[in-house]
């Protein structure tokens, strides 16, 4: 759509406006850690923020969403990048440690279901069929088990490891419960390796983040997903406006409420939310609707803590009016 150059210029303009608004020169550190999925966005934001506030040291680590939460809840980081919402156990630790967190969704990732390019029989799958294939105790072993006019060849399933946020979201959305999945699929932690796996196996079926499909369109065939309103393929448009359902997953950052008292963290968080739309699409994710970012900014200003995804410590869902 827009060339990299244009978006870069737009970003610089936005930064300039932000810095004019910010006025003072800030100093200090902002430390982020967490998911490798959210990392590219955080990196982009940190990079742009450096241009605006060069004296603030922003660092980003990649310990994984869970590992990042551990450090976050030990008070060692200011912001946690998370590819899944915070979980019950982590919320308990937070309240035990008296740490309040602010949950902000920053982008959509459209989970793409793909097959091998030589697979000529699959064009779309319904959510029901996906469930039948992937649920725990599934008896589907061949393509014919899914639709009777498909070949009687074994289905070879590929997916991320059982402790990744991608896996979590997929199993929760398709199978109804996080962590519920058949165990006998070929797992790999590295999404590039999954691409290689599917590209090399005619009978393969797998899923991963949209960016990995977008960079390997010649090696993969995209499957349209029918969530009840006809088959929809994930594109920037369909993920953003909610048509590609239910596999558009939000990715988050969690900010420590007490860290926000530091002006550099406050400035960075604001900058993040203001620029997330632009920067997320640059690195391969889909921006949320503008209204959500507006509400997110308000949430930060009001210091509204809590999560929309758990009864414990509940807060309103910023994405609620979307679907």
């Amino acid at each position, binding site marked *: 759509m827009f060339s990299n150059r244009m978006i870069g210029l737009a970003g610089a303009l936005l930064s300039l406006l932000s810095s004019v608004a910010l006025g003072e020169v800030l100093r200090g550190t902002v430390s982020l850690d967490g998911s490798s999925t959210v990392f590219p966005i955080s990196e982009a934001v940190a990079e742009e923020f450096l241009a605006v506030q060069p004296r603030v040291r922003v660092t980003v680590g990649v310990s994984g969403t869970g590992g990042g939460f551990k450090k976050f809840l030990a008070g060692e980081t200011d912001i946690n990048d998370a590819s899944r919402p915070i979980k019950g156990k982590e919320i308990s630790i937070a309240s035990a440690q008296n740490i309040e967190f602010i949950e902000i969704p920053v982008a959509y990732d459209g989970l793409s279901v793909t097959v091998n390019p030589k697979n000529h029989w699959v064009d779309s799958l319904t959510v029901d069929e996906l469930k039948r294939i992937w649920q*725990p105790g599934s008896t589907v072993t061949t393509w014919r088990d899914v639709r009777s006019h498909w070949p009687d060849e074994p289905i070879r399933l590929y997916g991320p490891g059982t*402790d990744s946020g991608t896996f979590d979201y997929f199993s929760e959305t398709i199978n109804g419960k996080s*962590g519920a999945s058949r165990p006998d699929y*070929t797992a*790999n*932690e590295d999404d590039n390796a999954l691409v290689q796996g599917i590209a090399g*196996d005619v009978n393969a079926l797998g899923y991963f983040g949209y960016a990995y499909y977008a960079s390997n369109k010649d090696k993969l065939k995209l499957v349209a997903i029918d969530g009840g309103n006809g088959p929809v393929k994930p594109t920037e448009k369909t993920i953003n406006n909610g048509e590609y359902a239910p596999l558009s997953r939000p990715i988050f950052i969690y900010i420590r409420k007490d860290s926000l008292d530091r002006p550099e963290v406050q400035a960075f968080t604001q900058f993040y939310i203001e620029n997330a739309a632009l920067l997320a699409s640059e690195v391969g994710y889909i921006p949320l609707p503008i209204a959500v970012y507006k509400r997110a900014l308000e949430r930060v200003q009001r210091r509204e803590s809590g999560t929309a995804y758990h009864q414990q410590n509940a807060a309103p869902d910023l994405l609620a009016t979307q679907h």
Partner: protein
Amino acid sequence: MSAVHLSIPASIRRRRIAWGEGIIKTLLALCTLVSVVTTAVIIFTLVDECLGFFDNVSPVEFFLGTRWVPLLEPSSYGVLPLLWGTLTVTFGAALIAIPIGLASAIYLSEYASMRVRSFVKPVLEVLAGIPTVVYGYFALTFITPLLRTMLPDLHVFNALSGAIVVGIMVLPTIATLSDNALRAVPDNLRQAAYALGATSYEVTTHVVLPAGLSGVMASFLLAISRAIGETMAVTLAAGATPNLSFTFQESIQTMTAYIVQVSLGDTPAGGIAYQTLFAVAAYLFVITLLLNIVSQFILNRYRETYE
């Protein structure tokens, strides 16, 4: 010899030297203590969490169960698939690295000229430093496609590729350390054997290798230790699917790979899923301990020291 001023009376000199000697000995002992303390800390950490784990999971299920599904519902905590993965990759890697590494070491120390040696040995040592992730991608983009032309049923992620690539990775360790060990064997032993009419093959296998056995086996040990602890290359090449299959053509997961997956992944802290990593690590620790004790035993029986 240390420079001691000769004008100082001998008795004082001796006492000073003894005193200095004592200090140095203590310093060295403290350094050794570092390793001992490290082991103690590791054991303590592992055992501590393990106790919590075995409160919730029966040891029988852990050691004898055949399904390792700790992070899904319904969960199952049988460690055998991981153990099998580790054994497969380690054994396969050893099968590749030991013959090739040893043969290279023999060539370098017994047959190669100084010039060849000064070229090949540094190359091998540089290759010991290539990051493991590179080997992983090498397996995925070069080795596996090559293997698939020979074995069409081979899955894209398979144990065979994993074993091969780990073997290649630890090969330089064996080659370079064994070469050192063989070169250190006194030359007069070789000359004596040749004088008795032995061929170079016989000299190498009957005289040089037994004399250098200690160093050679130490190199095997270091190589196998590295192979056991290898994660990224294995994960990329062999996937991360705990699997008890006996063909080498399917994806597997090793104990170490699982430990990394949980440590750096998305598993929430506390909770039984996190404790599994300590149970697996402790098990691995015990296995390597047994391996070391056995190899110590073999070494002490077969090693020949000259002088």
